């Protein structure tokens, strides 16, 4: 028994150290990469991209399900984006509320027979509408399918541009976000097949007429802690992974893809819970199998602001769903693991996700349990245990503060001193009890998936209107 506890404690120690070292390495890579990115941006201007005839058209696809509260604001925001050739497709995914009526009233929709060719699977379409106010806006009204992926597929079938940008209807894009996300594609259109943008927390900020007016840190601590999580995930994690062309996820709230490629992989998988990660994984598989020379990039400055859960229950559901989604992607793609054919994706990125993302809650729970047992059996040096905890805490805080630093030296959206002080203070407080709760939610997600519960579930949102 003691021997077993020893092995468990040892494993936990090395596991924890490895996780933090991996993140530290990512932090260093990310700081270096974003500094380089900023210096590169200094040598050209976005307006030049806007003026060149080479800038390709983009279709924005926005799925909307029961979004009556925010749909007007959201679409107005999209129509005001700064981009030369734009088409906006709103997919009304069988909304039971007045989403379609709101769109009809605001944008004077009329029925059209636009080209809709079902190249990728989606639920039947009831009608297509074009706006008389702005002809760039097309609304696809389809039967409910219960998944965002299905709605995106309907949008893909109606899209006419070589690139599609998937944007959540409850998100707000900064005015130049499309120009910024197109930078890697404009630089290397043959190799770059998809680009992810950064998602930031909208809660607490001020919006007027669909535009973000003032960025503020949310007041509720549960929301503010998520700000740190998002900074860590995007400014450190994705930045670093993308540097090695190993990005395995492009957020469903804001991502740009080559249309033909998304169609070639069959569009989004309607039954997938983590549909955003799933489509990227299938793109990697498809391109690796074809031995294509490609890149999936991340750009840290085109910003998409989105609402995050503001109560524990919604947050718990969201995190459980993310964990389900992760398992739902990793398990079907397990054949890619350690296969040279899939290159660094199979040999590094996917094993990392299995070990440090999927198994993390299991490892932590088992680890904590064995530590408690070991302590109660006297097989644990309290002094050393305490030191180990202090070290773990201080190390993890370095990573969190590092993500705040990254935000400070690069994008600096929180201009108020008080916001920064609060943000930094949450870096110290997020480790208890938020971290433990998070672990439990993720375990719940795994358990739900294994039990066969593959539903998306409902999230409680306030809507963009509340932020105005």
């Amino acid at each position, binding site marked *: 028994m003691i021997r077993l506890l020893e092995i468990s*404690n040892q494993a936990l120690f090395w596991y924890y150290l490895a996780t933090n070292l991996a993140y530290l390495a990512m932090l260093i890579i990310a700081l270096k990469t974003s500094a380089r990115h900023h210096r590169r941006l*200094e040598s050209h201007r976005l307006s030049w991209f806007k003026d060149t005839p080479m800038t390709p058209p983009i279709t924005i696809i926005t799925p909307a399900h029961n979004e009556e509260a925010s749909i007007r604001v959201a679409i107005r925001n999209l129509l005001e984006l700064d981009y030369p050739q734009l088409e906006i497709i709103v997919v009304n995914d069988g909304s039971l509320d007045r989403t379609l009526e709101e769109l009809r009233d605001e944008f004077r929709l009329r029925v059209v027979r636009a080209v809709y060719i079902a190249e990728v699977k989606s639920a039947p379409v009831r009608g297509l509408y074009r706006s008389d106010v702005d002809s760039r806006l097309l609304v696809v009204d389809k039967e409910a399918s219960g998944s965002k992926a299905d709605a995106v597929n309907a949008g893909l079938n109606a899209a006419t541009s070589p690139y599609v940008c998937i944007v959540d209807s409850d998100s707000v894009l900064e005015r130049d976000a499309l120009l910024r996300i197109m930078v890697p594609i404009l630089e290397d259109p043959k190799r770059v097949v998809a680009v992810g943008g950064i998602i930031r927390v909208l809660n607490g900020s001020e919006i007027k007429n669909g535009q973000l007016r003032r960025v503020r840190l949310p007041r509720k601590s549960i929301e503010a802690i998520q700000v740190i999580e998002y900074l860590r995930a995007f400014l450190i994690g994705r930045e670093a992974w993308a540097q090695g062309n190993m990005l395995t996820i492009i957020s469903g709230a804001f991502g740009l893809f080559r249309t033909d490629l998304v169609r070639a992989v069959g569009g989004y998988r309607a039954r997938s819970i983590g549909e955003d990660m799933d489509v990227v994984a299938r793109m990697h598989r498809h391109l690796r199998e074809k031995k294509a020379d490609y890149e999936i990039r991340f750009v840290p400055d085109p910003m998409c602001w989105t609402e995050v859960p503001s109560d524990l229950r919604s947050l718990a559901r969201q995190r459980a769903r993310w964990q389900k989604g992760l398992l739902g992607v990793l398990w079907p793609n397990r054949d890619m693991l350690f296969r040279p054919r899939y290159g660094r994706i199979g040999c590094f990125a996917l094993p990392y996700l299995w070990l440090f993302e999927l198994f993390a809650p299991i490892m932590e729970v088992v680890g904590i349990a064995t530590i408690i047992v070991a302590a109660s059996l006297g097989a644990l040096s309290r002094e050393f245990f305490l030191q180990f905890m202090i070290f773990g805490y201080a190390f993890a805080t370095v990573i969190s503060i590092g993500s705040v630093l990254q935000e400070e030296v690069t994008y600096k959206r929180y201009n108020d001193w008080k916001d920064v002080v609060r943000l930094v203070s949450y870096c110290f407080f997020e480790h208890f009890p938020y971290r433990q709760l998070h672990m439990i939610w993720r375990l719940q997600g795994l358990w739900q998936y294994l039990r066969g519960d593959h539903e998306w579930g409902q999230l409680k949102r306030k809507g963009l209107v509340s932020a105005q």
Partner: protein
Amino acid sequence: MGSVFEKLWRLGPAVFVFKAIIAAIVADGLLLAFIFIRRAYRKRFFAKRDKHVFELRQQWDALISGRLSYDRWREKAFDRRIVEAMALDAFEAAGPAESARLLKFMRASGLIEKRIFEAQRLTGWRRMRALVALGRTRAPEGVPALAEALRDRHVEIRLAALRGLGRTACPQAAEEILAWVGESGLTVPALPLQSALIQCCAERPQLLLPFVKQAEGPLREIMGRVLGEVATPALGMELLQFVGDEREELRAAAARAMSHLDTAMAFDALSELAEDRTWFVRLRAIIGIGNLVDPRAIPTLLKGLSDSNRLVRLRAAEALVHFRAVMVPVFQQVIELRDRYGLHAYLTAIENAGLRERLESQMQSSQIDAEEMRRLQSVLQTGSLPPEEPELAETAANQRESGP
């Protein structure tokens, strides 16, 4: 029995853990200090900058005309950077007269010389910044320094030089870029090169012709694309030679360029390219032939309407909609195609252009019989093809069988 941590302790890691704790706490402290000190510094910096910008803006005319002595701001790096940034921003929106005034000021104040020096002597991102700033001045004397940087071993420097040359938008810059790609081939991503060439060759597109003929591989494609963008009617005969080029990119560029030419010269070539084996060549040709708005193009556009490629169909439909005087016959011919996708594309284009009512009124005023009218209206209402008449169906089937 000792715990695992005691064992680790005996092995030495205890010292490591202790050091690690200290290091982590120090790192936390340093990061925090850096964040807050940087914030305080930036706050002061921006306040000072704002104050200086305001002061200099008040004296802008005197500053530009030289009435305000250059020495008053040139010696201070802080002020010099502000003045340069303001002048370069002013260039972006300036007309010819104002540009000339700004250029004169930048020459007289020595800012251009300074940038040329920096573009030649500095390294890393400072050099990149100098190169782009030099290009933004649009000063011809900056071109040699920019051209020199094109031969740098670092791709980022080459890209910055290319951007700078692009901003000058002058034929001398185009000559330098073309000479460089002739020497070293394609050593930068295609798009920055294309953009720079488009900007620099707009004035004299004929500069490109010898290079397009000589270039090989991907470089030839890039040149072709640039030519497609900047071509003018004066290049007419020269462009015809690319219609039969083996490279599809070049044929597409020729198709794109043809749309700038007069109808008499472009029509036959575009009709030929509209039947090309490569979809994007057909796409370019269909767009080009649509721009001509020549009724002779209708059969080609109808063929494009039943193309295997979706984008070609959409563009053909958009082009067909431009024939507003003959909407009814075109609509009838679209139906005769018996292509569901083609019909959808055409109806979409009609709807998008807001011409549905016009089509209906033309149908009412045309000389077609009642049965035909019903048939057309039914297609317009339902968006579906009418049932095929047996004789027609048989003929169509025979035609399909005898086809290639």
